[in-house]
């Protein structure tokens, strides 16, 4: 991750990290009981933004960083979207819909046969309210290089990504209970660790985009999957072995009720 940041920073970009690692980076210093639930991961979900790929030369530079400098190898069957390094370091490339690039199904081709991105419609506002995170606190004492920086989506964008990811895995052909549960747990962590200032920022963001289909869809996912503790989203969190294992069911449900009220209010414009 530090290597990725170092290489991006050199070409005056900050990698935008989403997924579980993005949640970790966004909330690792936040206060609240849910802090204990945050876990780091080796998997990097890198989202390439419109500003980052606007110039062809930059796209090629990013592709060179990933496959050349950092020696990520493309994963068979997931060509140019998913990469791997060593045994357990995965890098997935995502992107909001961006005009001016060839697309094929859910793929956007930044550099042909080298670097593609998984089109993520719900990331259409990803560049708004991005947060910059220094990697200095995460580096070991003997590896304090320069102050490398990454960016993470705002809490509202993180919630949007996670709500859609949860919905994608909770039903239909791509249903995968384990992944849906992981996304639901991330939603719990994110909503419980947000602060008042995040909420106020989120309210402005949602007001700006209240007519957007993405926001309306997110509201409908909240309504159908998270509007009561007995809905699927919270039930999956309740069943997660890592969800406050030392607490009893009543205490767990109390915490989920808090999360439910916060999430409902967050998406009420």
């Amino acid at each position, binding site marked *: 991750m530090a290597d990725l940041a170092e290489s991006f920073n050199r070409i005056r970009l900050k990698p935008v990290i989403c997924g579980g690692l993005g949640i970790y980076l966004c909330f690792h210093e936040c*206060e609240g009981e849910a*802090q*204990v639930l945050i876990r780091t991961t080796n998997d990097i979900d890198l989202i390439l933004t419109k500003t980052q790929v606007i110039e062809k030369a930059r796209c090629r530079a990013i592709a060179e960083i990933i496959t050349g400098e950092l020696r990520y190898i493309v994963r068979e069957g997931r060509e140019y979207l998913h990469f791997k390094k060593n045994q357990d370091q995965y890098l997935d490339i995502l992107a909001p819909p961006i005009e001016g690039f060839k697309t094929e199904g859910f793929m956007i081709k930044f550099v042909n046969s080298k670097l593609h991105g998984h089109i993520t419609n719900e990331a259409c506002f990803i560049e708004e309210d991005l947060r910059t995170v220094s990697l200095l606190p995460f580096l070991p004492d003997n590896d304090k290089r320069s102050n490398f920086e990454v960016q993470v989506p705002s809490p509202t964008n993180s919630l949007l990504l996670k709500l859609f990811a949860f919905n994608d895995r909770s039903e239909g052909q791509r249903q995968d209970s384990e992944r849906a549960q992981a996304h639901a747990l991330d939603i719990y962590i994110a909503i419980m660790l*947000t*602060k*008042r*200032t995040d909420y106020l920022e989120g309210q402005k963001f949602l007001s700006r985009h209240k007519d957007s289909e993405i926001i309306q869809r997110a509201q409908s996912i909240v309504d159908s999957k998270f509007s009561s503790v007995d809905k699927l989203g919270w039930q999956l969190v309740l069943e997660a072995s890592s969800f406050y294992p030392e607490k009893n069911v009543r205490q767990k449900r109390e915490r989920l009720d*808090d999360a439910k*009220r*916060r999430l409902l209010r967050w998406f009420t414009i």
Partner: protein
Amino acid sequence: MRITEREIIQHLQRAGDQYAPLTINRFEEQVLLPQGYRIDAIIEFSIQDGPSFEALVEITPVSTPKNIIEKSRQLADCLGEIVRSDIVPLLIAPYIGTKQAKILADKGISWIDLSGNMSIRVSNQIYIERTGRRNRFPDTAPIKKIFQGTSSLVSRALLLKPEGFSSLYEVVDFINVRDASITKSTVSKVLKSLEEELLINKSKSLISVTNREKLLEKLTEGYLSSTERKSRETYRFATESTKKLFFDFYQKQLVYVACGFYAAQIKGLAVTDQITIFVKDIEQVRMAAKQNWIRITPDAEFGNVSITEVKDPGVWFNVPLPMYNRDAVVDDIELYLEMMADTPRGPKIAEQLKRRILEKSDISG
């Protein structure tokens, strides 16, 4: 009710095979030794299909560390007078805890408790150790609440004044001038228990702590297990200006004290966006908010001010009076205890506070 020595003996005699493979062959009570020492009992034990041995027995209904040390000394004295190397010094109590077991092991004394635990060593011939059974006689455990509520103020005072106190009255005064209320009788009882636990030394002219770190540990245990603390309810409010909020509190004479990470921030130990305060009367605060006397609005989901009603005198002890330009903040000991309970971030801050508490003799908090 506490069990008596007589009842301990009766329990032991009725124990049946509870102590198998150990069986009691002979039980002699209140034995006067030739040198004038009186011992609680001499018991002859035997091991099933094995050797037998005699034990010189002291019985104690309450196994505080101090009692255990005293009984061990008595046993050692008696043993010194008996010129027999085959007799085993043995202590019997309703329950022997880990700390007490260690004291006895260090002194080479075997023990049996009525809860089914034992540690018996007969020279190099016999060694039996059985531990882990729960205390069946909880009434015999030393008083536990001395580290909670009003009683805890005594330990807090002892930690604040490392040079000690010249008298019980001085302890009472020290506490009562720091916004607390404690009686001489409570202080006396707590000091007695602390002495039983070997946490303080008491002489005619000085009451002082034997091990400050240990005392702080005990205070922490009491704090963490407090049911009062666990039952507190917190209400969230939103404010746009912290400065104005505390000015309003000051003006309206609402009693409050900054706590948690917010108190740690005021003391330069943490950074936080959340304002956490204790108040003595939450209804008073709600009323003031309703009347717009203080600039906060209820916000259960995203409020940046958490207010908890607390009666525990430990919270209000040793807090400097708030002024228009200075917040009231819990003292270092109270904040240390709060941080120890506030995982995962709290204990790191508690470590810094611990150093301050154990190093300084400054009583300002």
